[in-house]
């Protein structure tokens, strides 16, 4: 059933536009061009010293994984009210609805990410192919984390509609607290140690290390996050499943 749901969610994002699938690739590329213009030409943003890279490439490597992470959580949170009719009339495993929404969102952004990686040579940056495997592991960890948080968000959203307003704002905070637009080294020294508390920040660094520097082995942070993200996923799902029988009461 999960596969059917996932296909439906993927398709659902493009129903009504014949060329829908094209936009999966086109939108990220256009966005990449915009970033290239804004940060490269207007702001003349610089990568950290010692790296010989255009800023836009450095940004793109972290940007799309972040979008995937963020979209997965938001979509999962919206999945219960979206499927309210289904939930109130058809007995089915509701965690699959949330997981499929999160997965579809994540997969689509990763597809865009791939398009961006393919297009990056246009900006004079070659992606290191030997780092792909390590990057894949980091993305998998990021997905598990997003899905786990998505379960929490989806369950809480049923009880608290305010989450619709709160969640995007929280994620915006998290975006700026994660070194995506900037490098961790740019922060003052006394704040440096705070990165420990942002699980996504280290993943972004590992992605850059893998794809830009061709680091073959997965980063230490990624390895450490494998059990943590798995735990977040399982606890999130357990939380969701415990509350799920009562969704119809509150939805």
């Amino acid at each position, binding site marked *: 059933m999960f596969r059917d749901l996932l296909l439906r969610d993927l398709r659902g994002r493009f129903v009504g536009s014949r060329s829908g699938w094209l936009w999966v690739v086109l939108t990220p590329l256009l966005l990449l061009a915009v970033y290239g213009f804004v940060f490269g030409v207007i702001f003349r943003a610089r990568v950290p010293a010692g790296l010989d890279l255009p800023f836009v490439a450095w940004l793109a490597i972290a940007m799309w994984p972040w979008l995937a992470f963020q979209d997965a959580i938001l979509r999962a949170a919206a999945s219960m009210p979206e499927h309210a009719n289904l*939930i109130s009339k058809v007995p089915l495993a509701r965690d699959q609805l949330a997981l499929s929404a999160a997965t579809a969102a994540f997969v689509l952004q990763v597809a865009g990410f791939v398009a961006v990686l393919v297009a990056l040579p246009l900006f004079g940056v070659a992606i290191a192919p030997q780092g792909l495997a390590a990057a894949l592991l980091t993305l998998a960890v990021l997905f598990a984390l997003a899905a786990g948080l998505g379960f929490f968000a989806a369950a809480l959203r049923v009880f608290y509609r305010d989450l619709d307003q709160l969640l995007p704002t929280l994620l915006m905070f998290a975006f700026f607290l994660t070194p995506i637009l900037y490098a961790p080294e740019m922060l003052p020294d006394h704040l440096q140690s705070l990165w420990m508390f942002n699980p996504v920040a280290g993943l972004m660094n590992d992605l850059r290390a893998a794809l830009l520097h061709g680091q073959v082995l997965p980063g230490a942070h990624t390895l450490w996050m494998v059990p943590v993200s798995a735990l977040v996923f399982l606890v999130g799902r357990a939380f969701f499943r415990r509350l799920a029988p009562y969704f119809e009461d509150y939805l």
Partner: protein
Amino acid sequence: MTEPLLRVNEVGKAYPAGPGAGGRWRAILDILASGRSKGVKRVLGGVDFEVRRGESVGIIGANGAGKSTLLKMITGVLAPSEGRIETRGSVAALLELGAGFEPDVTGLENLRMNASFLGLSRADVAARLDDILAFADIGEAIHEPIKNYSSGMVVRLGFAVVASVRPDLLITDEVLAVGDESFQKRCIRWIERYLSEGGTLLMVSHNMYQVQKLCRHALWLEQGGVRAWGDVFEVTQSYLAWHERRDADSRERARAARLDGARYRVERLTLHPASDNGPLRIDVGDPLRVELALHSPDGRAPQALVGIVRADGTPVYGVATDHDEAVPARIDDHRFAIDLAFDGLPLLPGSYVVRAHAMDPEGLRLQDTVEAEFTVSGRSRALGLVELPHRWCTGDDADR
């Protein structure tokens, strides 16, 4: 004794307060801690019954009695606030036809999705696809988006998918009332075959005939509780009797309310010849006498208006005392009496109603209405309402 397919044990449901009422963190903590949520609006309580294989159950009751809530809990869409529900074997539910269908997607895709909700794999669906399509009988429309379907087509598709699952226990909520005659018949035939092959049905229906035909037991819910549980005929008959009593009561109450302001009343309406039990039966052309006792609050003689209508309400004939300048006879200060006699009533066979109205002495306002039914029987094959004097004439008929 076989194990029950479904055991509903002292089940109750209370819904939580609406959104914005607060206490939701509390609710989350309650559920996390105990797996239960305490509601405040109690809609169902103390429901206790079992369904064994082959012993289908009909759930009946007035609107708002809690039937749908009970079904939702049995299917698992809702969680009970008290008690337990245990099911064994495969269960499939049709709570609402077209539930889970997406309007923008083709019938075929929706069929696949719905089948997967019911636990069918892609391979199962592929194997049964021809059967499902044949049963749904919507032809090429299966490749069109559901939003272009008529409600009947949605029903057919929804039922066809469930029918293909052949669950041990099939749960339906008043869904057979939709769809055209021939599809309803097909559904009923399918259910009968399903039952004869050992299937078990749990249905909500307002159609007592259907319930009696398909079920062995019936559960009568009233205002969130079980009013009766047992043999289908006993329960449905007492349910119908209760309904009739309630309807009669409400008619009586409505009349009393009307009379509060009314001044002239029909105290009694009797038909002659009298009948011992049930509505009066007469033959075509028999005499009929309508006897009226009228009440006047001020001692002036009221006018009476008597009409005959067919059972469906079609008027046949109506006449008032002042049309013929008749005056009811005084019995005492407030009581008057008058009869209307039809020496030979030319009504064709059928059911009719005599309506007697009391009017003010000026004959301007209707102030009260009382009805009595009667039936005309006979062998006439003529069409319409009344027998009209007639003869057939041929071309060489002398007295044309």
